[in-house]
């Protein structure tokens, strides 16, 4: 474990890896509690898997048509696809709420299969895809850190403006509508922020595991705090712990740090659920 900090002097990627984890934690800590409160965990998955399709399309276009799309980086493709997914979901929710789950499931599957198909038809690009799907916290370039700073700033700024309306829509849509809040645009804002968070997390845990980092720390925090602001604070702290402690702990071993991060978040959540239900049973016992 000490070797991690010892090696940090020689290997600048260790520092950027830690920074990426902390920035991702900020994004997760701010948006995760809304995702839990609004019960949209499934939508996060759909957005992430649509982003896989975007990566596939970007890679395919850049290789097949280098003149027209040579500038199209995979991350850019992911951003565009995630934003399209956010808009699509907002429209679907507005128009046909009752068929929501089926349509979202379809988007999830279609996005993923488009991504895999297009990458298969792109010569020589298969290994790099893995780092988008499963993350690559070992080699984080400074350009990625800059992108993440921008994303976190946009997310925090948007929350400063929209927090009240977002919470209102989470609590009671009908009442929010009565008070003149547009449900469609508030949903759209939240979904776009989720899409940006997904992009911020690609490097740290990968698109497949985004779901875990965006929801598990916030759900764990929800066990111990009862209002949104403390939940945000607690889940940011938890997230920071999850992205750094396992990373340092498994350094130098064959265990991939991205999986260790997600596993730590999952185990802590499950332990918390167990502790909580045991405590509830103990509290309920004397009463009966």
């Amino acid at each position, binding site marked *: 474990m000490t070797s991690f900090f010892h090696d940090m002097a020689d290997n600048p990627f260790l520092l950027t890896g830690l920074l990426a984890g902390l920035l991702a934690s900020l994004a997760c800590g701010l948006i995760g509690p809304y995702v839990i409160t609004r019960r949209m965990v499934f939508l996060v998955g759909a957005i992430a898997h649509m982003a896989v399709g975007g990566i596939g399309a970007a890679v395919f276009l850049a290789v097949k048509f280098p003149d027209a799309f040579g500038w199209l980086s995979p991350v850019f493709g992911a951003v565009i696809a995630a934003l399209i997914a956010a808009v699509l979901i907002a429209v679907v929710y507005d128009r046909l709420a009752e068929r929501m789950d089926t349509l979202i499931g379809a988007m999830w599957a279609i996005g993923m299969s488009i991504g895999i198909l297009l990458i298969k038809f792109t010569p020589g690009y298969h290994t790099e895809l893995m780092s988008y799907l499963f993350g690559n916290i070992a080699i984080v370039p400074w350009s990625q850190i800059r992108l993440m700073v921008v994303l976190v700033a946009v997310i925090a700024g948007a929350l400063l403006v929209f*927090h009240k309306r977002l919470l209102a829509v989470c*609590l009671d849509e*009908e*009442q929010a509508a*009565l*008070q003149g809040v547009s449900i469609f645009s508030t949903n759209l804002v939240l979904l776009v922020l989720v899409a940006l968070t997904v992009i911020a997390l690609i490097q740290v845990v990968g698109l497949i595991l985004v779901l875990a980092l965006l929801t598990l720390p916030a759900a764990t925090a929800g066990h111990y705090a009862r209002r949104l602001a403390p939940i945000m604070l607690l889940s940011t702290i938890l997230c920071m712990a999850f992205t750094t402690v396992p990373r340092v702990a498994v350094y130098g071993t064959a265990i991939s740090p991205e999986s260790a991060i997600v596993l730590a978040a999952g185990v802590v959540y499950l332990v918390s659920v167990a502790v909580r239900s045991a405590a509830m049973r103990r509290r309920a016992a004397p009463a009966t």
Partner: protein
Amino acid sequence: MADDGAIVELKGVWYGYPPHALSMPVLEDVDLQIGPGDFLGVIGPNGGGKTTLLKIILGFLRPQRGTVSVLGGRPQKVSRRIGYVPQNARIDLAAPASVLDVVRMGRLGVSSWGCRFGREDTEAAMAALERTQTADLADRPIAHLSGGQRQRVLIARALAGEAKLLLLDEPTAGVDAHIERGLTDLLHRLSERMPIVLVSHDVSFISRHLKRVACLNHRLTTHAAHEVSAEVIAQMYHGEVRMVQHEDSCPLADPGCAHGCPAPGLGPAPGRGAAGGAGSGSMRGGGQEGDRSIADEDDAAR
């Protein structure tokens, strides 16, 4: 506006839910006027259009035919001035929010633009909680409320904005008799400040305070409160009404009122024969300027 001071005015309103729309109308040719100081109870069977009527007034639904004017404008424009207590508030009880958070949401329409509520929003929300005697619950998580407390908190939310009209949908569904009594009292006090429309399959709990009763089963007819007799009700419910004869000694016969109004009884509670005169008298006595309409109808009845 046609009538000076009409708060709500529906003229020839028809509404049917898609896909059937007007081939299966829920509301047929509904005319309704609500003036300042009015306290209207809307009764009718399930599926008779009670909630639909409220949603038309709130602007959630647009009638296929007819006109709706609320506070002198289109409902969609003025909805933030309407306090609404829904039947099944789709409020997410698992959401991380306190009672105060919920009540402040009633001020979204009047609060400033930023991410937080200002001090005057919090003060108004606390004042609304005071009015519904739930100020001590302000910091409670919304999940930790009893049925009666939740109903009061929802009324506080409806009042927290600058509501000019209060709509309640089945406010006593699922609450027991002693909570009903408290609600009766609260609504009576509120009715002195703003017009109230209360929708319920059974308004007997508040009958003494109502100024008018509307019977709604697709079509709507309004009556001065004391005119509503067992026959009117039976007709509307197709005769399938079981009446409960409350003796004077029965605690349910008198839902109780701190203002000491005598109990007339109405609708399913048939104390009318004995207390009818006193009842209508008390209704007029307790009324505000809005009982012009009652007086008119009284005259017509005689």
